[in-house]
């Protein structure tokens, strides 16, 4: 069983601190929800899509591999804001849920 890990703890301490937020239960689109973790399946979730996890897989690498335009999306990791500048040094753990947000129209 995985233990939820704070965002700050997985970022190299020599870098500036990343603003951390407590996990949230849900969002308008449901994307920030800490849904079922993959347990021993060694998967990561990208917008609820299960993908294989591997050692040293960073959030930036996962986004690039999935063709997400890094500069046109905003990300949350396990319900916490993950700033763009921290993606490359943020290593994903099995069961992590990376959520990608894009700009849309709004009222």
């Amino acid at each position, binding site marked *: 069983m995985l233990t939820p890990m704070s965002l700050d703890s997985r970022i190299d301490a020599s870098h500036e601190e990343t*603003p951390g*937020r*407590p996990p*949230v*239960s*849900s*969002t*308008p*689109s*449901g*994307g*920030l929800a800490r849904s079922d973790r993959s347990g021993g399946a060694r998967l990561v979730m*990208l*917008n*609820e*899509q299960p993908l294989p996890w591997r050692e040293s897989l960073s959030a930036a690498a996962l986004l690039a591999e*999935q*063709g*997400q*335009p890094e500069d*046109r*999306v*905003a*990300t*949350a990791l396990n*319900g*916490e*804001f993950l*700033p*763009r500048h921290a993606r490359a040094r943020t290593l994903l753990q099995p069961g992590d849920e990376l*959520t*990608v*947000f*894009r*700009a*849309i*129209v*709004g*009222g």
Partner: protein
Amino acid sequence: MTEPTAWTVYGTPLQNRFLIGSAGYPSPQVLQDAIRASGAQVVTVGLKRALAGVANDRPDNGFVALALASGAQLLPNTAGCRSAREAITLAHLARELYDTTWLKLEVVGDEHTLQPDPFELLAAATQLVKDGFEVFPYCLDDLVSCRRLLDAGCEVLMPWGAPIGSGQGLLNPFALRTLRERLPGVPLIVDAGIGAPSHAAQAMELGFDGVLLNSAVAQARDPVRMARAFASAITAGRLGFEAGVMATQDFAVPSTPVPGHPFLIG
């Protein structure tokens, strides 16, 4: 002086008092034309979780690019949030995505009416102001909760006129008038519930500084023409407020200065 006076929000001078939403238009071209017709200098936008497994999806079909190209100041919202925590997280996402500290803060407390949750809203606003955001809270028309938002550091308030998208107009003019009376100098924007240009004019005549609306334009048979209609109504209402609307009287007061009777018959 025949144009409404300029106003300032968070240090940004604005000439136009129409803030327009970008959702629900029949086509990107209509949105672009409606923004132009409105003269709005502020356009609201949102965020959405990207589609799973779809790279480079364009969930907005280019609408946001058009909003950006309009030259307007973008005002991202936290639509759909039900708690302060959600709103705070989404706010940080929005700030990075749109590169602006402006934020239309929405924290809804009831699914049926989409009424703002004053408690979660205040909690979120308090934190977000500390985080450097310039918060535009979508709030109730309740004076005391509005004061708390100002205490938290909000420099503008956006009370609802009626439930979002209902088009019912100003359901509680007394409350709105009270806000104007008791919060002089605070930029006040009616947000939500406006359906017809006359509603917007009424809000402006009450002394509100601006009107934010979306559905009333986007759902009109001719959104571009309706955007123009609202622009005219908002200007008219503001000019009326600045000119000073006459006091109402219980009974007739003759306007033509004719003494006595024009004819003596019989």
